[in-house]
């Protein structure tokens, strides 16, 4: 019954196989030639950095990787983490962050606060990479640039405390009316809209970095597009930048503090979001560290017997509820039910399984500083233990108040990132089982999730937030009724009043009491349901020391790192 295999008869197949082998041989030769040609083509497009090692003690070079390409090195417009890390290494503002997230003098070596007037005195030896000194005029130009509407900077709001900042940003006043002027080349006078206690801390943000006017204009709109379109006043300068592939920074010998910089070069040789790929590079000895390790990658790390480390990245994650008129979540008892049913410990310890996450109890991070010591030690948040019986009672109250027979499905808006997927699916099943609530997951990708969140098209949504500057106000004003980032449109005059006190008062104790009040209101009014405090797991070559890993400010900083010969 076999099919007539004409080609199966031996002489035929032997002959055919022989001929096939000849053809295969010819093909291999052809492939080799092709490889040579393509190899030459690749070196033209290549990222260089072909055979570097993770650490080189002799040349004082560290090789590492980043997750995403660097989209914007124009400090007036930059808004993402990768750009912030790089900017903090190659440029410097009036103040800068040290490795322990403390603020220390940068370009300004001292400053004076006098009510609504702050005067910064710039260093003598602060220089740009072309040799010219960094002057107060550079700050004036940069701040005006950041605040004018044409620049459309997302972080322009950081400049609102400066006099007329908000008005200029709305297009109501010209940029010259911004409350900053160069009294001399090395004296910068700032006039604030109102006296606030925390202004100097704001100046460490990248939006406040200096930009030199003549250089900016000479680039014809291409400022920060490439290596030659940037001037550097920081510890390093960018010497090679192949977009999407690599970025190399070398020590800036004109930096005023160059003696405390040990490294000669920081080489970012690989760009990919895939953590396993980066771990493989680490294992192969190509890069010196891998951060942002997901929970699933940890087993590989443990098997390899590397040292795992963690740091808090300063972001808090919670479930935001919608307070708009037509939403069920506006009802207090429903919110309270969700809050009482909430078990962040189970979520973090058993579901998300990343040891660097910690269950959250309050919007304010555990690392946030208070008047003396940590804020949460001075003002511990009111404790809401998980209590399913109480939760069900509250749910029943809510049902009666809303006049429903049963609850309709609630929509949970979430991203399509792995953590959000796991979290949302877990939550869906958890609320169904324990409260009998039906949750529909609205899974969106980044842009659409942003749009829906900001338009308020959700009942519940997973949200993360991190501070823009080192003051509790950056957390406390999140739910003020005027804050556009208050996606649920929570509106509580009591909370607003406390936020205003915190904004305007110059008395530290009074401010922190106000923050404590905000913390209390957020919990007792069940405004949000806290989930976790996020941390980052990373591995690092033990010979690399003193890398800055911060919960405030740019998360990763190699500028003050050094290499030892032995671990």
């Amino acid at each position, binding site marked *: 019954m076999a*099919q007539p295999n004409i080609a199966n008869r031996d002489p035929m197949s032997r002959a055919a196989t022989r001929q096939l082998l000849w053809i295969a041989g010819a093909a291999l030769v052809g492939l080799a030639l092709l490889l040579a040609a393509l190899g030459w083509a690749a070196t033209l497009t290549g990222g260089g950095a072909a055979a570097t090692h993770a650490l080189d003690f002799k040349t004082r070079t560290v090789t590492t990787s980043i997750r995403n390409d660097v989209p914007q090195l124009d400090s007036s417009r930059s808004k993402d983490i990768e750009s912030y890390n790089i900017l903090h290494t190659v440029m410097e503002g009036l103040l800068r962050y040290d490795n322990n997230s403390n603020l220390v003098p940068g370009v300004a070596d001292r400053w004076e606060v006098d009510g609504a007037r702050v005067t910064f005195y710039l260093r003598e030896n602060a220089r740009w990479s072309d040799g010219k000194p960094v002057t107060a005029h550079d700050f004036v130009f940069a701040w005006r640039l950041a605040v004018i509407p044409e620049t459309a900077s997302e972080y322009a709001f950081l400049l609102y405390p400066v006099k007329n900042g908000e008005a200029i940003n709305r297009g109501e006043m010209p940029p010259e009316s911004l409350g900053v002027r160069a009294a001399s080349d090395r004296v910068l006078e700032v006039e604030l809209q109102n006296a606030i206690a925390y202004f100097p801390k704001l100046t460490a943000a990248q939006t406040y970095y200096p930009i030199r006017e003549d250089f900016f204009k000479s680039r014809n709109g291409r400022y920060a597009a490439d290596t030659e379109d940037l001037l550097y006043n920081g510890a390093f300068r960018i010497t090679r930048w192949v977009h999407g592939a690599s970025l190399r920074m070398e020590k800036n010998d004109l930096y005023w503090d160059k003696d405390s910089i040990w490294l000669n070069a920081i080489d970012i040789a690989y760009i990919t979001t895939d953590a396993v790929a980066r771990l493989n590079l680490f294992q192969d000895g190509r890069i010196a560290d891998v951060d942002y390790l997901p929970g699933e990658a940890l087993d590989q790390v443990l098997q390899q017997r*590397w040292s*795992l480390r963690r740091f808090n990245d300063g972001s808090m994650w919670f479930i935001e509820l919608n307070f708009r008129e037509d939403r069920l979540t506006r009802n207090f008892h429903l919110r309270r039910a969700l809050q009482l049913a909430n078990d962040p410990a189970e979520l973090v310890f058993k579901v998300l399984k990343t040891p660097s996450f910690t269950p959250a109890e309050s919007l304010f991070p555990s690392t946030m500083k208070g008047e003396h010591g940590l804020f949460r030690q001075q003002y511990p948040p009111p404790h809401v233990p998980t209590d399913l019986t109480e939760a069900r009672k509250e749910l029943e109250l809510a049902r009666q108040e809303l006049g429903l027979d049963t609850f309709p499905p609630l929509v949970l808006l979430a991203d399509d990132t792995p953590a959000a997927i796991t979290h949302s699916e877990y939550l869906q099943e*958890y609320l169904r089982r324990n409260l009998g609530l039906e949750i*529909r997951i609205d899974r969106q990708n980044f842009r659409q999730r942003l749009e829906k969140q900001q338009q308020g098209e959700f009942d519940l949504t997973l949200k993360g937030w991190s501070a823009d500057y080192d003051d509790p106000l950056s957390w406390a004003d999140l739910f003020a009724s005027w804050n556009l980032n208050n996606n649920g449109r929570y509106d509580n005059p009591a909370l607003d009043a406390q936020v205003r006190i915190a904004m305007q008062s110059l008395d530290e104790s009074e401010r922190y009491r106000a923050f404590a009040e905000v913390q209390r209101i957020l919990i007792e009014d069940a405004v949000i349901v806290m989930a976790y405090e996020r941390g980052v797991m990373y591995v690092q070559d033990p010979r690399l020391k003193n890398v800055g890993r911060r919960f405030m400010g740019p998360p990763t900083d190699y500028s003050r790192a050094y290499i030892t010969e032995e671990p």
Partner: protein
Amino acid sequence: MSAVEWQPRSEDFARATDADRRRGEQRLVRPSISYWQDAWRRLKRNPRAVVSLGIVVALSLFTIAGPWVWRVNPAAQDIDQISRPPGAGGTGRIVEPYIQWAGVTTETLATAGSALATNIRLAEPATTQAVRLEWAPAANASGYHVYRNISSPRVGRALGLPLAEIIDPHRVSFEDRFDLEPVKYWYSIVALDANGAEADDYAVFEVEPAMVITAEEAADRGWIADAGAVRVGDMVALPNHPLGTDYLGRDMLSRLMHGARVSLFIGVVAPLLFVFFGIVYGSTAGFAGGRIDQLMMRVADFVVALPFLLFMILFRIAFGVQPGESGVLPMLVALVLLSWPSTARLVRGQVLQIRNEGYIGASRLLGARTGYLVFRHMIPNTIGVILVTLTFEVPRVIFIEAFLSFIGMGVAPPTPSWGSMSNEGIKTMLAHPHELLFPALFISVAVLAFNLLGDGLRDALDVRLRGRE
């Protein structure tokens, strides 16, 4: 025969009659059958087709009858049994529900200290609910770091997972609730100096927690009839998961059964539909030739060049799929609309090859219309290529479906599908390979079935093999 000229007679062209047959001038060995009948006959006897049929029957049973036999809810999460390997089960002891632990501070513990944090001990027996450690304080410590590893940390200071950073020198206890499983753990406590840097020495403690569960949780998950039936200290049997559990503790076998419905439906129906359309389209274009062919092929190019993801999102909106709902039909339509060009092109290529053949011309002369030519001549000659394409489209579509469900089009969570299970399994494929292995295996089996069926069909339908056995 002799060289006599043979003059044809009209009788020579007459059909053989029974009388002729009996005379043996013409002996038909078997009745005359049509092409399709012959194909069917050969298919039935083809070993590959028979095997594939067996697989198809098995898969159908698995999909349809499976959930009746294995009555486990595919959406039920068991947080305590996340990512357990196949055959997971065992027993657990009933305990009281979790109560927070106040921990231990140096005020409540009166022991001298050394530079090394020593004397780590359990405050109470270790269970998977919590492992509570306390230790003797170290001198001059400003705090402690707690690590946990799954192998001894003595070699190369591989301390493992950093579980906690205690910045209070008076706190000398730690409660671990992180992902506890009934396996051996090595805890390490390292003292921190005044600057927060780790000391060189560290203390190690080895422990294996016992598997426990609260009565309420056991009742919740249906392992016991109700919470009152057991008391603290009783042992309960944990449910058996023959194929293990996934990243949320859901039973793999049950998910595979329910997932088969979506995957097989989409994976079979969609390719059939768009291959069919591609055949019609491609053969028409190939036959028609000229301007029509060019136009049709340019349309095909156009469809291929469209950005897939963008149009999928568009379709989802156009079909009004609400968030959180399953939109399998819209997904099917969208898939078909965007996937037909490759088949069309292939078929057209074949048609171009044979449309100038003699027998086509002859058929035409005899009055055959295009439809007949396509059905009777083209398709049998292109069947090999078509079947190959069909085979390859099945897994491709299954994975596309996974991707679409991922972006919110297709099936909504918690409904499973083989493709989405594979996607999820990728994340943990090194640590828990079974989560990827099983869905991929089932996809392989389905593909194999189609492959074999395709081979069998090809052999059965091949014109030139007709009448050879």
